[in-house]
């Protein structure tokens, strides 16, 4: 049996991750919890406090983190993922000593360079030069070291011409570039990076990716908070999924990414959208939905999971010899595949749908779709031989396939193609 290249690479990555796990711990987070008191009517002044001394009781408690424990080992590229508001940024801020945990402890070995909320500690009134030196010192360099690295930082950020400009005159893109350069140049033992790829242009994105590749090769310890699962899978040795202030999973990045997708797109039947239909005098779509193997309605489907299609149609008038035709389309409206069904009837005469009768078109559809967005279009035709259009829905259903196995095109098909050396010519 030949393992596919993908599998072999994955295995190799896993072996590297396992070896790192045996190495020394550099970040040890134990039982960390954090709550925020959010006053329902915020008291921002002494006057209000004096006028309403018991007002503190009106605070609403937001549990941001609940009993979080994990380790990061030397040389690991460690991902933290989660939906907005799950607590991942709070966790990073506690690790960076910006917030203090209510309970639990955080242990770290070595110098730390944080990159949080798209930046480092910039003062808009100072020039970029001054800010670079200030932040270098903040990240544990001496003043001299920070000055020595100034050129490197400005070159990397491609901001040499703007050295003496006050930071408030910088564009936000320039600011992020400078911040990222400062963080990288600080040469810290541990880097905490929050969502750097979400901003900046494509060129900067490519540069970040290069930096990540190099840092990973150099065996630096990096904690990366991100929404981008492809980054997680590409770089991380391990990743942590945080949801509703709890740790849901720590482990292989593929598994973490998959669980993250499940959280985001996994069937919450209440969110099923109204099918986009065109009202028609001949027939009406009463309902159309997708189902999983357990018979539950789903809005989105996991890659490779069983998929059941259902469409309930009511005839408004007599439809003779109807054909129900469905197309699976990509977001550009290109058809990927489709099928057409006739009524299952005993004889030719029975191939009629009378006014008011309902027909359910349902069954399993093989799910070979790659992750992405799809929609289903529908045609209903009567008088098969003449092909009179009875009903047309451009987008009967929209759904998402989520998963971690990418590829080109929209469909994954098996193949047994091999490349072998067969001698020399």
């Amino acid at each position, binding site marked *: 049996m030949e393992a596919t290249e993908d599998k*072999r690479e994955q295995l190799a990555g896993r072996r590297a991750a396992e070896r790192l796990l045996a190495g020394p711990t*550099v970040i040890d987070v134990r039982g960390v919890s954090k709550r925020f008191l959010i006053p329902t009517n915020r008291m921002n002044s002494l006057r209000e406090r004096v006028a309403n001394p018991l007002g503190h009781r009106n605070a609403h408690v937001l549990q941001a983190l609940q009993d979080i424990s994990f380790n990061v080992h030397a040389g690991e590229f460690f991902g933290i993922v989660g939906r907005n508001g799950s607590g991942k940024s709070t966790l990073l801020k506690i690790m960076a000593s*910006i917030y203090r945990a209510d309970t639990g402890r955080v242990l770290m070995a070595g110098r730390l360079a944080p990159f949080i909320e798209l930046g480092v500690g910039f003062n808009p009134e100072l020039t970029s030069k001054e800010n670079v030196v200030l932040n270098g010192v903040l990240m544990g360099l001496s003043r001299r070291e920070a000055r020595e690295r100034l050129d490197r930082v400005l070159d990397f950020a491609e901001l040499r011409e703007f050295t003496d400009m006050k930071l408030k005159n910088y564009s936000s893109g320039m600011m992020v570039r400078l911040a990222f350069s400062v963080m990288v140049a600080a040469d810290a033992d541990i880097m905490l990076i929050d969502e750097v790829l979400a901003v900046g242009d494509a060129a900067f994105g490519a540069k970040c990716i290069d930096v990540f590749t190099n840092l990973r090769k150099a065996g630096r310890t990096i904690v990366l908070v991100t929404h981008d699962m492809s980054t997680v899978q590409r770089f991380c040795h391990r990743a942590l999924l945080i949801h509703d202030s709890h740790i849901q999973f720590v482990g292989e990045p593929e598994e973490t990414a998959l669980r993250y997708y499940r959280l985001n797109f996994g069937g919450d039947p209440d969110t099923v959208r109204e099918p986009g239909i065109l009202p028609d005098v001949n027939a009406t779509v009463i309902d159309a939905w997708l189902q999983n193997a357990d018979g539950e309605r789903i809005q989105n489907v996991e890659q490779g999971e069983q998929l059941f299609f259902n469409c309930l149609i009511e005839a408004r008038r007599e439809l003779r010899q109807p054909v129900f035709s469905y197309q699976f389309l990509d977001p550009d409206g290109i058809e990927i595949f489709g099928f057409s069904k006739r009524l299952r009837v005993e004889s030719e005469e029975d191939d009629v749908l009378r006014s008011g009768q309902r027909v359910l078109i349902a069954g399993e559809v093989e799910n070979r779709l790659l992750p992405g967005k799809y929609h289903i279009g529908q045609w209903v035709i009567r008088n098969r031989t003449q092909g009179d259009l009875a009903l047309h829905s451009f987008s009967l259903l929209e759904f998402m396939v989520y998963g971690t196995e990418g590829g080109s095109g929209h469909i994954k098909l098996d193949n047994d193609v091999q490349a072998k050396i067969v001698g020399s010519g």
Partner: protein
Amino acid sequence: MSTLERIEDRDATPAPPHVGELREVSGPSALGGGRRRALELLYLMASFDFKRTYFGTTLGYVWTIARPLLVFGVLLVVFTKGLRLGASVAHYPQLLLFNFILFGFFQEGVGTALPSIVGAEAIVRKTQFPRLVIPIASVLTAMFNLGLNLIVVFIFIVGDGISPRWTWLLLPVLVLGTLILTIAVAMILSSLYPRFRDVGIIWTVMSTALFYATPVIYPLDRFHHTLRVVISANPMTVILVCARKWIISPSALGPAGELGGHVYLLIPAVVYVAICLLAVWIFRREAPRIAEEL
């Protein structure tokens, strides 16, 4: 690159050369991140601040010298020609200028430090910046000003025929005494300001009240004994009375003389120490949570 090579490449993640000892991260604090780092940051913040104040304006250096001169001109006209407050006081213009400059340092230091933590929001919310450095840097910037102003003050003092004497060497004691008090008040107000924004308004009123409750424009001996004791509960009073005796007119009474006994000096001493202790207590209490209040 063949698959095998690539696999080896991924395998070849080198062990990091050096791993330090695991240490507990204590969260944000007044001096978080070590004393050396805090001092370097303090120096950088204060010098950048100073540069910004003086090189950001068109006239730059000129203002540094012109400002105290202009203030002196105004004081001279108002208090010696208009109000005639110091008619019988020796070297009244010089005394007035010195008092004004030293008390002005206290006011300016506290006034700029008060919103400093809120103003440095970007830094406080994104980094483990030692919180205490921020208000102290503002006070130090004000002290740079004081230094420049004092040069001008001494030119006027010498110009009026007051000759230098050994007590001038005690000037650093006066400055240090004022500096510590300024830092203490700045610590209290700047750490409360993110939570209670009306601290700003209270300070505006308080600093004006303090200005008149301190013998800046009048000599303390104008009042009867009880009032003198009350006014001297303010530690700045004692500092200014000392300054008058040490720098301007040695024949003037010292604080013990003004109050009629050393025992009365206990009051300002206790107030001074209490303010400092309160400052340390409040700041240490507020520092860990300041980032959450912004």
